[in-house]
């Protein structure tokens, strides 16, 4: 017993330390690693009841959020797993009292059932079938299966998002993306280029993403997409010719706002001025049930050395240098979120969040 607890401690500590040291960064990698980590936790931890398991996951969540409060994906994955367990518990109690089918409260689910929800329901149904035989091991295997599905979902995010390209992008359109660092946007554009011919304006996003910008531009150009790198300062000037602005989000909040690379808020403001539609692309794992109440804490401030070379001794220490890495974009600047489960208006995000997470788990503490 103690040795397994010991093992679990090591597992948790080293994962938290990795997050802290930024050996795992970027929401995609974080989400993926968190799934793998949870898989190991689920299989190696000991618990008697589902409640105990929930408490364990919540305590881990607390530590992860403290270690890296701006990597929302880790928390989101934990919440998804918690929702899975809670669903299972409520299903059991519901069917134990009587075999009346759980009432489907989500209006949305009646209209457009999201694919992963179906999977979850399938799981639940599987669970119902085997429930009578074995209960505890059964829950463990359900959780593991759920995490596996989650891993699959995360791995196929790009493909699922890219399915919507044809509807979203038209021929001979000029697109602007102020987030050159976003893999999702890059994949979206590459996929679109198979069916459509268009021009992409890509901003430098100096200083934090400039290397990524060059990399992305190279990839796009190799795919025969007409690619133009523009300085950040010219966004307003080119906006009149732009058909759509495509942004990649780092995290999406329940109010429909999102956190993304710095400079994007400016681009969205410009787009609004010209009534240019703004599309945000994000995988479901980036949707966070939190509300962005304290916007200052959401924005990470990065390395000052990227703004001003450190070797410049005339300026270092004599002027203040700040280099915010992230920007918060309010919901009114975004027209549609393109996700792996379809396109949604920012107003509707709260509903998706409600469908995927339990309100009990919004706050881990």
């Amino acid at each position, binding site marked *: 017993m103690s040795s397994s607890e*010991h093992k679990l*401690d*090591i597992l*948790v*500590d*080293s994962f938290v*330390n*990795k997050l*802290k*040291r*930024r*050996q*795992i960064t970027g929401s995609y990698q974080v989400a993926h690693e968190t799934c*793998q980590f949870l898989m*190991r936790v689920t299989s190696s931890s000991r618990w008697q009841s589902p409640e105990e398991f929930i408490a364990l996951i919540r305590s881990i969540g607390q530590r992860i959020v403290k270690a890296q409060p701006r990597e929302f994906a880790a928390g989101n994955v934990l919440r998804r797993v918690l929702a899975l367990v809670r669903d299972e518990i409520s299903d059991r109690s519901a069917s134990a009292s009587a075999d009346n089918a759980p009432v489907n409260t989500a209006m949305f689910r009646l209209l457009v059932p999201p694919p992963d929800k179906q999977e979850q329901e399938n799981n639940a149904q599987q669970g119902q079938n085997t429930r009578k035989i074995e209960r505890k091991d059964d829950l463990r295997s359900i959780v593991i299966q759920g995490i596996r599905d989650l891993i699959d979902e995360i791995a196929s995010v790009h493909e699922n998002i890219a399915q919507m390209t044809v509807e979203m992008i038209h021929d001979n359109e000029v697109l602007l993306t102020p987030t050159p660092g976003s893999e999702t946007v890059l994949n979206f554009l590459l996929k679109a280029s198979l069916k459509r011919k268009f021009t992409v304006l890509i901003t430098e996003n100096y200083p934090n993403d400039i290397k990524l910008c060059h990399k992305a531009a190279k990839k796009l150009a190799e795919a025969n997409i007409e690619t133009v790198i523009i300085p950040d300062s010219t966004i307003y000037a080119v906006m009149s010719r732009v058909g759509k602005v495509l942004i990649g989000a780092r995290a999406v909040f329940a109010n429909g706002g999102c956190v993304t690379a710095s400079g994007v808020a400016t681009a969205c403001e410009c787009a609004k001025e010209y009534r240019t539609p703004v599309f945000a692309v994000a995988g479901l794992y980036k949707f966070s049930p939190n509300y962005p109440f304290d916007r*200052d*804490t959401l924005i990470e*401030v*990065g*390395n*000052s*050395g990227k703004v001003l070379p*450190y*070797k*410049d*001794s*005339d300026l*270092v*220490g004599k002027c*203040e*240098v*700040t*280099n915010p890495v992230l920007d918060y974009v309010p919901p009114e600047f975004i027209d549609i979120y393109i996700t792996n489960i379809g396109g949604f208006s920012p107003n509707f995000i709260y509903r998706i969040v409600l469908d995927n997470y339990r309100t009990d788990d919004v706050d881990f503490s």
Partner: protein
Amino acid sequence: MKKVNTNTKLEYQAVVLTDSYQTRFMPLTHVEPRCLMPLANVPLIEYTLEFLAQTDVVSEVFLMCSSHADQIQKYIDQSKWVLPSSPFSKIHTLLTVESRSVGDAMRDIDARGMITGDFILVSGDVITNMDLNKALSAHRQHKQDDRDYVSTMVLKQASPLHRSRSYVEPACFILEEGTNRCIYYQDIPPVNGRKTSVDIDPELLGDVGEIVLKNDLIDCRVDICTPQVLSTFQENFDYQFLRADWVKGVLSSDLLRKHVYTYITKDDYAARVESWQTYDGISQDVLERWCYPIVPERNLLEDQTYTYESQHVYKESDIRLSQSCKIDSCVEIGSRTFVGDGSRIGSSVIGRDCYIGKNVIIDNSYIWKGARVEDGAVIRHSIVASDAVIKENVIINPGSVIGFGVVIGKDVVIPNYTKITKNLFKEKKRIKEEHSDATSDFGNETEGSSSQFTTTTDEESTSAATSEIPSESDSGEENTNNTTRENIVGSDGVGFLYEDDERYNGMVSQMASLELSDVSIPSSTITRRSTKRKKRTMSSTASQAAASEEESEDFEQEAIATVNRAMENNYDIDTSLLEVNTLRMSMNVTYHEVRDATCKAMLSRVDHFIETQTLGVKEAVEKIFQKWSELFTRQVFEDADQVDLMMIIQQICSGLDPKYGSMILLYALLILYEQEIIEEDNINIWWNSEDSKALNRVRDKTAKWIEWLAQAESESEGENENESDESEE
């Protein structure tokens, strides 16, 4: 599953030099080692370990501790680095109490045979966010390509007068264009006109195409070494410094002629806290986020809760700020700290549990945990160490250092560059240390004050042999300190002025007074480490126990011969020291044997003089001991060593002619005492020890002196007359 390490599974060992073997941070390092000093409220060692952890390839870490080793050990034992989740598979704290320089430490770790392959050598005060993996791959490349390759120095580019570049120890590197091979290293001599050129042996440039001379590098003392580095240290036991001796030696000596490469990083941040100036500069860099992601809200310590606010303000949870206080940019405040009304804090770091009163101004200062600054105080560009109290309306002017637990009384104005300590840790200690500085610094000119003891003339010592104890210089200093005590901390204060060597004054650079020194902190620390030391010596010698038996015999003969030769030919002290030390290294014997041999040689010569009736007893002892007892400064380090030394002398004296054996003992001790090699406390320990009592025959003469010592201590200094009476005997 796990993040894939570099293509092959590469693991390195890391050696962390926790000691700097310098006294730049005195007086604070008297209480706490440099590597546990807080920078932005995190002990320095954490930054180094975090840097090693970040690389993901470091498997084993060796912390080389000499001064305050117990504190470091304790700290590490309680830290997260020993937990099973630590990224290092093992972390060892090695006590090398006898180490006096980087060279000694390197030789020691080599002797233990714990380094099995390539290793990373860092000093325990590095702050960096660089990715060592790039440097490591450069290292592997060089190793493959160049047969003569020994190590890679990691350097950071910055302009020569950058704030985090040390002004104390500037150096320039001469590199080969293109390959980054270091051709020559030169510490830059003072720029006050004495010498501003760099001499390069033309032979070194023989096969080199183009050279670059760089004076814009921050040397952050991160080296990736092959095991050959250790062996060259072992072979050249006079190497003290890593750069000035080793790099220079390896590059220019015909015998070695190895290749040292440099890896220059431009984008990353790397610097070393090696003086007050760099402490200030690096603290500001961390607050201004030049070292991102090593920033305060990274919360390196598990229990920290810093969060970032705009304008580079970092606050921990549970702090109380009054409504009207003003926090300017670049401020870090630890938890449970209170800041009163109308106070203004800018560019500063405030530790945990501090109290800042009303209308206080703190500008670019570092207040360590638990300090108390009362209403109306003004602190500018200064450091206030833990638990110090600054009372009302005190003004602390730039460059001051207020030591641990010092109390500065009301309305006192502390002048620029003042260092204050709570306890007057024996001034004479400091002089001794300077003394050892002079001797350790081969070839360097000794400073005026340090030679004051060695040049005491014969007449002076004959008349004042015993009256030396509270001698003019000593009592004078005591007096001035008593008077300055009032001035410096006020009537309700606690603390003494710490007089510096005036070399590394405050945070400002004093290029003119620059002097390369390697004064070791260990010599100034008086801690009870003797038991540990013994354990260590035993373990390090146990392996070769059989061999060492024989060796020590040889050693004794050799050493006696060496010392005799030195005395006969009247070599200078440095040369003889070097010879004896060389012998010690090559035979691998303990300091006890060195002392034993030295004493034997010296006393037999004294005996010779007396026997042949060339000199009287007293004259003979003085002739030999006045000059040659300086040898002991490099053989006696701790209290236990002093006792040991006295015991050796007593034993030898008891073997001499009973007519004058006891006289020799007395006079020898007097001189040693006078030269600050032995101390009163230890004399008492020795005197009262069983071993000493057993050799009763030679004790009679010394007994009176011991009595007098006890008396002198209990009474005050005003009794010089009595002493001279006693000395007439």
